[in-house]
């Protein structure tokens, strides 16, 4: 008699991985994230990425900033969060600056933030494609750089994290230029 393995139904493909020192932390993280309605699953990390225990949580990589914030708020210890695919580059750290005369545009990854050199007011944000970006656009426009909410605090995605980098660099330029 032949035995057939039931084909495992793939429920989730996230592309990101949270690594932990011990199994209890991984299980706690899974529970915390599921309670917050994140799509996650417990997996064994690839040997090349393993840093602590042999249990990890697969996440949708785009949601990395929101997940980091939640795990920190809930005191869940983790080693690192990053791409699941071996060979993926590090998170972009560099920025580009474009001078438009009265305005300066700072580009970080796929996000751009433009402010008025005279008064430090954010006049535009552009780029990106994640659903928090139009919301952040509305939240940031017309605000002074020093008073604007930080995208890393109210956004959820990697696009928001890149916008935060652009804001951080803009703040440095604004404070340096004053």
């Amino acid at each position, binding site marked *: 008699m032949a035995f057939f393995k039931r084909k495992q139904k*793939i*429920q*989730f*493909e*996230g*592309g*990101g991985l949270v690594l932990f020192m011990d199994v209890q932390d991984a299980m706690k993280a899974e529970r915390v994230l599921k309670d917050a*309605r994140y*799509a996650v699953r417990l997996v064994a990390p690839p040997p090349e990425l393993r840093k602590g225990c042999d249990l990890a949580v697969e996440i*949708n*990589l*785009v*949601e990395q900033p*929101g997940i980091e914030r939640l795990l920190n708020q809930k005191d869940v210890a983790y080693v690192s969060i990053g*791409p699941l*695919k071996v*060979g*993926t*580059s*590090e*998170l*972009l750290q*560099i920025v580009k600056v*474009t001078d*438009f005369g*009265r*305005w300066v*545009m700072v*580009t970080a*990854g*796929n996000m*751009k933030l*433009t402010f*008025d050199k005279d008064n430090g007011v954010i*006049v*535009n*944000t*552009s*780029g*990106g*494609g*994640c*659903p*928090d*970006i*139009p*919301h952040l*656009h*509305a939240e940031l426009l017309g605000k002074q750089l020093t008073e604007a909410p930080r995208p890393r605090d109210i*956004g*959820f*995605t*990697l*696009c*928001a*994290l*890149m916008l935060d980098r652009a804001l951080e660099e803009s703040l440095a330029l604004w404070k340096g230029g004053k």
Partner: protein
Amino acid sequence: MLLIAGTVPVKDLPLTMGKVSTEKEFLIVNDYRIPCTQGTGAMIGAALAATNYLTLEAPYVLVAGDIGQGKGSREIYEYLIQRVAELSPAVLALHYCLPNMLLTKKLCEAIEKCAKRPVMIADAASMYAAKSAGMAKAFDIFTPDATEIAFLADPDATHPAYIARHLFDTDITQVPRLAAAAYRNKSAANLLLVKGAIDYIVRDGDIVATITEPDVSALEAIGGTGDTITGLVSVFAYAGLELHEAAIIAARANRMAGKFAQATPATRVRQIIDQFPAVFKEHLCQWSGVCYMEGGNYDD
């Protein structure tokens, strides 16, 4: 039917599908008001300006509120997976969402059940998901900007935040090299409209056109001006133009609207969209060879 699907930054907006219209500065779908700002709103606003001018049926839109937590995005994917074969749109344009690789694959499978395969267009995170899921070849048009073409060229990246530094550190003149890499990796749609200081139209790896005039450098800073190009190319494809022609005219019209608006980096996208009727009236006949006559007739 031209169907545009994407999230909008209206937190409590339920999944909503309907024909779009305008009321003052808002878009109206089934009595819900949507801001015509950066993202899916700007794309819809531009598309509606074009269908109104061409006296085509207004776009249908499938929208849901989502400010980053993903619920609205999932509802859009799931609705399309269940209903796209029945809807069978002529053009399906996918836009802002929380990218989901598995649901993107399921959607591409569902598309195969349409009586006639729609023209498939993706921008924003729908394009990120299509590339990351290995489904780029199921799409007819992607509309990346300079950073996003670098993302498509990077075989390992699943988001532009994780592209290799040497790819980010390139300028717009490197687009032909990056586009060639994207095609080699099977990460590009059949046609690419790469938006930037130079707009590149790339078909199956070959540059078929570049657009540099008018030169309105401020457009890059204005949130939503990439979204308007995607809205325009969707309508011109729906109107029956060859896809590369649709892309060329969309890029030209967007630049010209920026010029008409005397755009600065502080201009809002709504001011660009407001210029499209005047741009079409002055240039569309010459650019497309299809001329709209007063009274609703077309003249080839």
